[in-house]
């Protein structure tokens, strides 16, 4: 029931298109994983951070005199070397650049911000020592929300043109007296004219809930600075090369003396694609204590208060429709809570600009205006989290379509059908100038409707409405996931670098076996296996003979890392190109050695064959031996060695289509929502490893469901996080996540492997699906997430009393 919709692409039993056992599984299943938190080194000591109990307060004094400075070195913003900052840069006009110090300097801007750090022999003693540091605080007024009721009222019109923000009494950063770090208006066509001429105009006002990645392994780092001036930083980072690049710059060290190693990482989801102040602090401390490896492992309480979160947004939306349900115009105002700092390197613009850039999703919209803003507040910084902003914008767009369908009395699925970008429309230029070259949304929608048995469920829904029974509802989400962004569409808001490319080295060792050094990292995506499959296929060697290494900046030439669903497209492309290049070099050498025409040679299973003869003439091992050990046999013009490094940049990117449909049942007496059926159909292009693709989709849907129904980082008015443990911050378990029916259509993309990214797509649908399903079931618009039994029940009560339930 949960198998792929189509047969996997043809390939060898473990090459591209097959699902061999993952190379990483054995060590992870036997307790031999190599996580940063597992690392032990001689002389290693442990670090704990003292964190601000105040959301906004001036630091009047820090007294660590109760601690012996040799036993327990203490670091603060005043410590030597700590006068540096992270500065996330963007060329966006009007963007306000702010500093993020490694330890709070003068002022703490959110509850949980690291203010001091202490070193001890183990974590227990480090936490003991924290209790002996005294800080004198002068509390300041606190801002928690990114929008005020006045701002919403002043705008209210939802036409993408709201008034300029006002100065606030205690701005989070002096550089931004109104707390606005950025704003941008996207505009195309004539929105006002199109709205005026519409058969129906609908408005929605939506608030999404702050939640975060919460990988099961928190952040972790070990920093070792040796007195010969080398820094090694083991970090559970998704972006080790970016980390090296910046650490070298801030610490004023040659990059060649900074080595960043990301071994096994216990989940990332974007949260670990940020260089954090704690990372910088740890490295600065290590530099002050040469020869002593310093280890910090984030605990869950720290993660919830200090690792970046996301999706704390408000949207004022307006859409116009023609009588047949076509969208005439979309206008929007969006406020994104960026928290207290602009995260490095993604900036405070990461969510807001993505929200404005992709709000219209896979729907054809000509007239579009959207003003987005990033507002800083005294809360934990917001940053990248799987799906960046689009779980919210898909919710926004689908809410508009549901409202439109209702206003016009049309079937909600039909309204999607007429608006989706289709194969005949591509290349389709979105109103924000991105180009969608897929158009397979309709196909996904029809396949999903079939798998869900939409017709049968509609009949059952009607029956229950007639005869009684718990109401059921069906929700819909169609989304375009922009994956594998190349230089022309690079991820991130006009940062001073472009993340469009990735390097890969493929090396044949003297024994004929292959080593792959890949620039991206892996936090569970199975890259060790997928990359090996790509290389094994491209070269013609057995999967077992391919080893993959990644995550070590000393081994790998260059890589931006794992984020933005870019692994398969960009790093896969680089691996493929490098493997082809080595294969060619090996065959050229073989042609000389075996006195054959290179075009007649092929490599298969590590053996060299000449066309027309069933027996191999030699092996890759024979060729490699000559390349490395028997230079006397090397033909003229051949360099020793057998390897190749290739960069790949898709220049544009590959849109992946996805549709999710679900049926839910509501218990009106308690407001409890039960998921009856969940269907997802995605076009992931060619699936390299269908089982891994499947797992990515399932995992991302589960996170989406978590965000829609359970997960909420709640702050009180004083800026204290009230959901500081996993007993209050609720992540869904196996008992909450439904069985999922996941189907794939494989429409190869225009890149060497024909692949599209799949890491994020699943998270985009659930909020829209569940909110839409509730409205479909009981006629209540869900304007605020998460959907909790309490809220649903209260809304049902209100609807019954004032008769507004449809």
């Amino acid at each position, binding site marked *: 029931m949960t198998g792929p919709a189509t047969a996997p692409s043809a390939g060898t039993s473990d090459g591209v298109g097959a699902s061999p*056992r*993952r190379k990483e*599984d*054995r060590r*992870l*299943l*036997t*307790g*031999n*994983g190599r*996580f940063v*938190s*597992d690392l*032990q080194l001689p002389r290693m000591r442990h670090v704990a951070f003292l964190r601000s109990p105040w959301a906004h307060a001036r630091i009047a004094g820090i007294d660590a005199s109760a601690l012996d400075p040799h036993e327990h070195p203490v670091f603060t913003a005043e410590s030597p070397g700590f006068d540096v900052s992270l500065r996330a840069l963007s060329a966006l006009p009007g963007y306000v650049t702010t500093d993020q110090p490694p330890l709070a300097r003068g002022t703490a801007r959110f509850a949980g911000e690291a203010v001091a750090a202490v070193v001890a022999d*183990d974590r*227990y003693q480090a*936490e*003991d020592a924290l*209790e002996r540091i005294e800080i004198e605080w002068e509390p300041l007024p606190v801002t928690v929300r990114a929008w005020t009721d006045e701002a919403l009222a002043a705008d209210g019109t939802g036409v993408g043109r709201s008034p300029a923000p006002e100065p606030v009494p205690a701005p989070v950063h002096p550089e931004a007296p109104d707390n606005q770090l950025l704003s941008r208006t996207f505009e195309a066509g004539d929105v006002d004219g199109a709205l005026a001429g519409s058969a129906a105009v609908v408005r929605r006002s939506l608030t999404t809930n702050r939640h975060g*990645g919460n*990988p*099961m*392994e928190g952040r972790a780092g070990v920093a070792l600075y040796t007195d010969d001036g080398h820094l090694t930083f083991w970090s559970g980072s998704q972006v080790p090369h970016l980390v090296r690049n910046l650490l070298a710059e801030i610490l004023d060290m040659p990059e060649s003396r900074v080595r960043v190693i990301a071994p*096994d990482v*216990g*989940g990332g989801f974007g949260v670990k694609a940020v260089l954090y102040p704690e990372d910088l602090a740890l490295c600065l401390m290590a530099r002050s204590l040469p020869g002593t490896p310093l280890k910090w492992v984030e*605990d*869950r*309480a720290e993660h919830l208060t200090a690792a970046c979160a996301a999706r704390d947004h408000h949207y004022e939306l307006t859409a116009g429709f023609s009588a047949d349900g076509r969208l005439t115009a979309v206008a929007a105002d969006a406020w994104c809570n960026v928290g207290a700092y602009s995260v490095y390197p993604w900036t405070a613009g990461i969510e807001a600009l993505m929200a404005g850039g992709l709000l219209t999703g896979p729907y054809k919209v000509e007239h579009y205006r959207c003003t987005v803003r990033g507002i800083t507040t005294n809360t934990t910084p917001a940053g990248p989290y799987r799906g960046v902003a689009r779980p919210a914008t898909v919710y926004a767009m689908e809410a508009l379509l549901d409202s439109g369908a209702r206003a016009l009395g049309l079937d909600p699925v039909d309204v999607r059908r007429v608006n989706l970008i289709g194969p005949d429309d591509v290349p389709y230029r979105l109103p924000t100038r991105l180009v969608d070259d897929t158009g397979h949304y309709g196909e996904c929608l029809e396949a999903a409707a079939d798998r869900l048995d939409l017709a049968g469920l509609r009949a059952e829904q009607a029956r229950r409405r007639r005869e009684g029974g718990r109401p059921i509802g069906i929700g819909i989400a169609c989304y375009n996931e922009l994956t594998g962004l190349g230089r022309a569409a690079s991820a991130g808001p006009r940062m001073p670098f472009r993340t469009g490319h990735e390097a890969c080295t493929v090396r044949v060792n003297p024994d004929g076996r292959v080593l792959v050094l890949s620039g991206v990292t892996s936090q*569970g*995506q199975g890259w060790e296996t997928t990359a090996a499959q790509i290389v094994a296929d491209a070269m013609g060697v057995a999967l077992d003979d391919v080893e993959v290494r990644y995550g070590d900046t000393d081994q790998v030439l260059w890589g931006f890392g794992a984020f933005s669903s870019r692994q398969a497209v960009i790093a896969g492309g680089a691996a493929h190109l490098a493997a082809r290049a080595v294969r060619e070099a090996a065959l050229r050498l073989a042609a000389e050695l075996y006195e054959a025409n290179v075009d007649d040679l092929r490599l298969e299973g590590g053996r060299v064959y000449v066309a027309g003869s069933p027996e191999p003439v030699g092996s890759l091992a024979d060729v490699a031996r000559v390349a490395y050990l028997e230079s006397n046999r090397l033909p003229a013009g051949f360099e020793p060695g057998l390897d190749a490094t290739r960069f790949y940049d898709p220049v544009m990117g590959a849109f992946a289509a996805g549709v999710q449909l679900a049926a839910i049942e509501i218990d009106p*007496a*308690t*407001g409890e929502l039960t998921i009856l059926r969940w269907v997802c159909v995605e076009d992931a292009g060619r699936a390299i490893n269908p089982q*891994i693709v499947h*797992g990515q989709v*399932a*995992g991302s*849907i*589960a*996170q989406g469901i978590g965000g829609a129904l*359970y997960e909420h980082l709640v702050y009180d008015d004083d800026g204290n996080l009230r959901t500081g*443990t*996993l*007993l*209050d911050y609720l*992540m*869904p*378990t*196996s*008992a*909450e*996540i439904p*069985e*999922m029916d996941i189907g794939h259509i494989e429409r190869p993309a225009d890149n060497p492997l024909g692949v599209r990214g799949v890491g994020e797509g*699943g998270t985009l649908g659930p909020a829209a699906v569940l909110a839409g399903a509730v409205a479909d079931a009981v006629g209540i618009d869900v304007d605020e997430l998460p959907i*909790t*039994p*309490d809220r649903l*029940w209260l809304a049902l009560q209100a609807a019954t009393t004032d008769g507004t339930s449809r």
Partner: protein
Amino acid sequence: MKPAPFAHVRPATVAEVVEALAAGADLDGGAKMLAGGQSLVPLLAMRLAAPSLLVDLNALPSLRGVAADGPDAVRIGALTRHADLLVQPYSVSGADLVAPGATGGALRNENGLTGPGAGAGDMPLLAEAARWIGHTAIRARGTFGGSLAHADPNAEWPAVALACDAELAVAGPSAERTVTAHRFFHGLLQTDLADDELLTSVRLARPRAWAFTELARRHGDFALVLCVVTELDAGWRVVLGGVAGTPVRCPSAEALLDAGERHPAAIAAAVAAAPEAEAFSDLHASAAYRRAMAAELAARALRDLRPGPGAAPVLGTEHVSSAALDPQNRAVTPPSPSASPERAGTLAVTLNVNGRHRAAACEPRHTLADVLREQLGLTGTHLGCEQGVCGACTVLIDGEPVRSCLTFAVQAEGAAITTIEGLAGPDGALHPVQDAFSRCHGLQCGYCTPGFVLTAVHLLATEPAPTRPVIREALSGNLCRCTGYTGIVDAVESAAGSMGGGGAG
């Protein structure tokens, strides 16, 4: 998130506990009792509690068990694990439970053990309520007495106790005393217990009819609201949990039931109007919702009333000699975890891990998880929350899944510990569950995996052919952020098949 230092003492008798508490009272941070640790250790880890002395009750096996207490009541030892109450009929060993001041009224069999059919019989209300408490690993350690003493208003046992006219036996420096549940709960996490008193056992009236209904956000969470309805000899009880700082009775609804009213809507209306159902708002639900749900759950309880079983079979039981009342004599069966004198500072500890005896030097405050990871190099046990919630640290202790973040290493001495490193065969062959995880893509980053695998191994040992819903429920005490659980459920189902359980849905 690591506890502050404390000394650890493991007395073998109630009297020694009382002595230790008295001695500890003079220390800076005072003394605190440790039972299952499933509520206390998270508080220690967050340093919301920092006692100087931890008085470990786990060497008092005589306080673990269920016994009939006359024909119409059962007596539950304070150290009885939640899991002990799941399996009926009760035949838990080691129970030596007597009512304070009783002169031969309580029952136990010859050797202090209660055998099949010779125990307290059935009390299905307890099994139903226990099902709602946390997850397998929480129920394996958490205790009945600990839950009552902790007095979380959203917990199951306090409400059950109130609904069964519980009498709580309390030992302290002076003579043992009995407190009724009604008087025991003072407020949110507040009870009638003084710092130097412990709960030893609880007498619950056996209901003639009962119902237990609960609403929680997720499977295994503390209740948002719960309702227990019982018919006792003394009359009907309607008890609500999760609406106020303590579980509360609803006298108006009880009066209706006593007068013969059985209509669910009538009872619900009484609850809805009851001043006792005046509820609080918190993160998870508003006061209005809680109050309405109290009424709804009461109505459901009425629809779901079930008969209590008859009195316990009085088989092979005898009157207790008054000698058993002497606290010094309580430990009639050899205690499995032996008593230990007070220990502080760095200690030499020997742990039996994966069949090998391993020596470690640790402080009493060091969790088993940290000692396994940091000292024994067994880094396959992971930490994801240090609060007992995520399950990443789950290990098997004497075959039962246990949170190693909520267990101190000193407590695990003498027990057989199995970690993920101990599962594969000596030839390196993967355990069928490990193999199935790999085959079915039951892992992505692999961080949660050791906890899931060990939980699944335990599940399949107790239930060889679980259905998918059963698997989902059994694994709900473990969080995975990567897989969406699909591959994990597939893996456990497949492992059941390959281990011979097969035939699962």
